């Protein structure tokens, strides 16, 4: 029984049912039933066209389920519309699932859960484990999300930007348990990039590949954070970096810049530098200027201040920081770093301690606490 094959076929089978007019929630149930059937039947009798088999069985399950007095008319209409039998080859059936799962009426967490389930083919249990919530909680979240999008019509293309945001959310969740959400996000973004020709999709894929390439060096085996400048660059995954840069260059050549391409460009400049000291900070500042123009986000301007600090010295960085609201997350951490480089260790230690207080995860808090402790010991 090939579980990976089943998982890879699930979204397109679901997409075909939805395109044929099945309601999303009912289609999802029908596909799950068909998968159960496949697990039972295939070991003895594997079909020649697995996808065609799944579509046929799922469609039959769907019709069975809707065969009630109230749904009779609708079912008859659907049977009339049923396409002729034959191999199911349409490639972009999955595409509309992406739009459906990222529907604006869903909360971010529901959109993420539904995407992992419907497009990624993960089980409810796997998603619940990845997010450390009880399976019943995740099941409810998914079924509510299904109900919410159930009436949604898909007669026109959704907003790609929303889909990209959901995929980026999945990527940023990192991983826990047996599901690697970062790898899963890359897999889904690859699928999306194959189905849709859009420079920002390419930009996001490049960004994920470039970040993911540095993953092994980002923490020590016992979970201590390693800053970019101190990372062992020989452990970066060069094939992913090369792939990311290739995808990014092709996207940039199309001259339709967006925020993911700009972020990927910054990641590429980091990944390309043989040592931290050889990083092209001047160009990175220029990309941050582009990003600030595209998004006007305070987080971007905070990161820009770091880059300015590297390109033009810590005083220039601190000046750039002055224009920013101090409540932006990680503001204190950046200020601490710039003061440390400027030689003001007392202020730096105080700010590191403050930043540790505000950190939203353990690895970051421990890292900042260590920095504060190190400076306090030196004074």
């Amino acid at each position: 029984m090939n579980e990976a094959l089943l998982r890879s076929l699930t979204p397109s089978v679901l997409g075909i049912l939805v395109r044929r007019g099945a309601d999303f929630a009912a289609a999802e149930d029908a596909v799950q039933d068909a998968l159960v059937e496949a697990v039972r039947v295939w070991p003895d009798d594997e079909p020649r066209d697995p996808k065609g088999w799944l579509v046929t069985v799922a469609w039959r399950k769907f019709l069975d389920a809707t065969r009630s007095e109230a749904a009779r008319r609708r079912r008859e209409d659907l049977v009339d519309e049923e396409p002729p039998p034959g191999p199911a080859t349409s490639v972009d059936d999955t595409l509309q699932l992406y739009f459906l799962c990222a529907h604006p009426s869903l909360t971010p967490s529901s959109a993420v859960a539904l995407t992992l389930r419907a497009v990624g083919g993960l089980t409810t249990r796997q998603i619940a484990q990845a997010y450390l919530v009880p399976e019943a909680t995740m099941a409810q979240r998914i079924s509510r999300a299904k109900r919410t999008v159930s009436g949604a019509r898909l007669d026109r293309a959704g907003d790609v930007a929303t889909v990209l945001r959901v995929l980026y959310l999945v990527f940023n969740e990192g991983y826990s348990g047996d599901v690697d959400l970062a790898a899963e996000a890359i897999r889904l973004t690859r699928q999306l990039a194959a189905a849709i020709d859009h420079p920002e999709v390419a930009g996001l894929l490049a960004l994920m590949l470039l970040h993911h390439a540095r993953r092994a060096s980002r923490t020590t085996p016992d979970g201590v954070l390693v800053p970019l400048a101190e990372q062992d660059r020989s452990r970066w995954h060069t094939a992913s970096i090369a792939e990311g840069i290739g995808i990014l260059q092709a996207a940039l050549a199309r001259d339709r810049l967006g925020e993911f391409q700009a972020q990927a460009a910054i990641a590429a400049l980091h990944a390309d530098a043989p040592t931290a000291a050889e990083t092209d900070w001047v160009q990175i500042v220029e990309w941050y200027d582009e990003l600030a123009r595209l998004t006007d986000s305070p987080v971007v301007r905070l990161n820009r201040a770091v880059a300015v600090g590297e390109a033009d010295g810590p005083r220039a960085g601190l000046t750039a920081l002055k224009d920013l609201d101090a409540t932006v997350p990680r503001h204190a951490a950046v200020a601490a770093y710039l003061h440390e480089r400027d030689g003001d260790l007392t202020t730096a230690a105080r700010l590191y301690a403050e930043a540790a207080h505000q950190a939203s995860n353990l690895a970051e808090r421990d890292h900042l606490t260590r920095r504060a402790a190190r400076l306090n010991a030196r004074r």
Partner: protein
Amino acid sequence: MAKYLLLKHYRGAPESVNHVPMEKWTQEEITAHVQYMNDFAARLEETGEYVDSQALAPGGTFVRYDGEGRPPVTDGPFAETKDLIAGWMVIDVDSYERALALAGELSAAPGAGGRPIHEWLELRPFLGESPTVTE
């Protein structure tokens, strides 16, 4: 998505508006209170925001290591200055605002006279796993 801990205190939190100890409530008032809490949890389960909830016994003890080969030191139960946790609920929500709204709702559980207790709940974010992108 972020997890938050809602802490209910026996002691240590500021006094609630409708401050009458539970042992002075009527049976019906207690039933109504428990029902409210259960309904609240059930509703969160349905929205996919429920993670866990537990009640704790009031009798806590402070314990500490007292050196190799010696039994741990305890300060005995019911020390006057202790902050006592009555129980908790863990929720997994989209935003801090949503967490605040839910905490407010939980604080409105009925108490003496069937009126909301207006008790102070402590709302604490969980420190999560390090996200993938931190550089």
